């Protein structure tokens, strides 16, 4: 028998895969079940949105920005309007700033609960997926009540928001928040005390604090590694400067920071609780006033046509810092627009997280940063140039089997 010289093999995952909510391609170098190296390829759904934005006026860009991402359909247009407000020197009424916080936190609750369900699904815990989606449904009902829409909310306007939240609407909001609080304990118990969750997530997909800082990680991914970084607190926008809250890092609950998947679960769960508190604070201290600085859109557009300059808009989206750069040159259309979604910064930290992990851990580790990338078909395993396909069910089954093995 001839000696075997090759010890590692290439395993491509994606661009289409169930663990990824949008297309991205991983090329894994594997040694048996262990991942030795990873490379990432992006761009499968690049829609040239930044280019398309330069063919539109700022109000039209709001609706384009809303369609960058289905889950972050509030923070993208909002970050864009923050940038435009800096350029045109538009003052946002205080009442509108509080309303903006409420919508931002509702989006965070929706996103984190959705993520929790996806994470449960990745390790084969589908009953929890349905539990979380039942809870999320209630939050979407509230979003519909407040915005008139469930997903693409259409609530953003440069200089404010498009719909008011009046005191008559408060009872419905309080009712949903109470429902969330009642269900929170159950969620906490399932995610933080369950044997399977602990076994699959503790010590898995570790990102150290040094790596998180070096690779510019953002959002819950950075905070779970102990990096105190949250735009809401670091650099106040909307009305966050008036509210009482603190950075959520896993040591708040456990007294230690490991930077693993378990810590990322802790951070997101605690942030759901924090968001509920922020909405309550806003309702309690809501100032009166206008909802938008200039209600006549034609007048606003006429003003925006004359402004010259550049500005940045930053806000803390559910997944981390979202960053928009806008340049305007006294023209109907904007001159330049750069959108930096949080996943853009959280791609590089995937590499240290995935190295040394097992193939069965790929779905949960990849999902643990809550990547803003999409859904799947098959994986091809190339072994000695003879490739065979490992379809989505098989990879998902491997993950389920690992959970069962650990439980046996």
């Amino acid at each position, binding site marked *: 028998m001839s000696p075997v010289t090759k010890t590692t093999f290439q395993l491509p995952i994606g661009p289409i895969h169930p663990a990824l909510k949008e297309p991205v391609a991983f090329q894994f170098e594997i040694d048996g079940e262990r991942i030795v190296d990873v490379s990432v390829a992006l761009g499968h759904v690049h829609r040239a949105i930044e280019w398309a934005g330069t063919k539109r006026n700022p109000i039209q860009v709001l609706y384009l920005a809303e369609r960058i991402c289905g889950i972050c359909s509030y923070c993208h247009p909002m970050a864009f309007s923050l940038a435009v407000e800096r350029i045109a020197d538009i003052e946002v009424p205080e009442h509108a700033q509080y309303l903006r916080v409420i919508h931002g936190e509702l989006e965070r609750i929706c996103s984190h609960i959705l993520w929790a369900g996806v994470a449960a699904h990745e390790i084969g815990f589908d009953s929890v997926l349905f539990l979380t989606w039942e809870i999320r449904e209630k939050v979407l009902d509230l979003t519909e009540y407040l915005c008139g829409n469930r997903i693409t909310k259409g609530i953003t306007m440069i200089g404010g928001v498009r719909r008011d939240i009046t005191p008559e609407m408060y009872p419905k909001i309080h009712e949903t928040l109470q429902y969330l609080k009642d269900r929170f304990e159950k969620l906490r118990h399932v995610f933080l005390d369950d044997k399977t969750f602990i076994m699959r997530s503790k010590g898995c997909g570790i990102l150290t604090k040094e790596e998180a800082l070096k690779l510019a990680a953002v959002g819950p991914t950075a905070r779970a590694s102990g990096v105190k970084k949250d735009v809401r607190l670091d650099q106040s926008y909307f009305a966050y400067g008036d509210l009482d809250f603190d950075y959520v890092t896993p040591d708040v609950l456990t007294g230690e920071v490991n930077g693993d998947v378990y810590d990322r679960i802790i951070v997101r769960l605690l942030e759901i609780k924090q968001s509920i508190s922020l909405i309550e604070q806003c309702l309690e201290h809501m100032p009166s006033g206008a909802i938008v600085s200039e209600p006549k859109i034609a007048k606003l557009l006429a003003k925006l046509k004359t402004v010259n300059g550049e500005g940045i808009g930053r806000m803390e989206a559910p997944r981390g810092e979202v960053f928009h750069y806008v340049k305007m040159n006294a023209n109907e259309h904007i001159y330049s627009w750069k959108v930096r979604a949080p996943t853009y*910064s959280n791609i590089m930290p995937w590499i240290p997280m995935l190295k040394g992990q097992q193939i069965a851990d790929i779905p949960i580790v990849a999902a643990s940063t809550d990547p803003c990338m999409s859904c799947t078909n098959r994986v091809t395993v190339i072994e000695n140039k003879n490739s065979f396909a490992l379809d989505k069910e098989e990879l998902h089954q491997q993950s389920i089997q690992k959970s069962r093995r650990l439980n046996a």
Partner: protein
Amino acid sequence: MTRDQHKTPEEILQSYQNAFSQNISESRIERHITGMKKTEFVHIWIHINRSVFKEGLKHLFQFDECPHFAVTSGYDINDNIDLIYHFSIYHGFPHKELSINFKVTLPKSDPTIETITDLFPGALISEQEKQEMLGVKVKDIPTNKRIFISDDFPTNVFPWRRDETGPQKFVKNLHEVEQ
């Protein structure tokens, strides 16, 4: 670093003026307030010469041991390409974080710039994107391949350019009906 050691935006700008005086063509500090408590936030803008650009970024480490790199934006303007490197320092201290934006102008005749991935490894994707979208050449970039644009796209077309190397010929206006 403690909060007492933090420099004010004016001190930071002054420090840049002292170190790179003739190489800073334009600078400004934007202050804005939010909420009922009138919490302030600050954006600093510095237009720095390409020759001292890397030194300018190294200078940032004097104020914060780990400045956060957000992204590089850029646009084509007449005969030049402007790149803006967005950073923030002092995160982890409520309402103290400062955004610092460095603008660098590159002539289209020689659109080269040094890589910053040795200082900020997380900047790799951003540099790859600027190469393929604006036709900028990043010297010593660790991974010199495309990231967002597919490999079969022409190499002499840059989607964010507004000149003859722009993407105009690929644009189909659906409202223009062929006769």
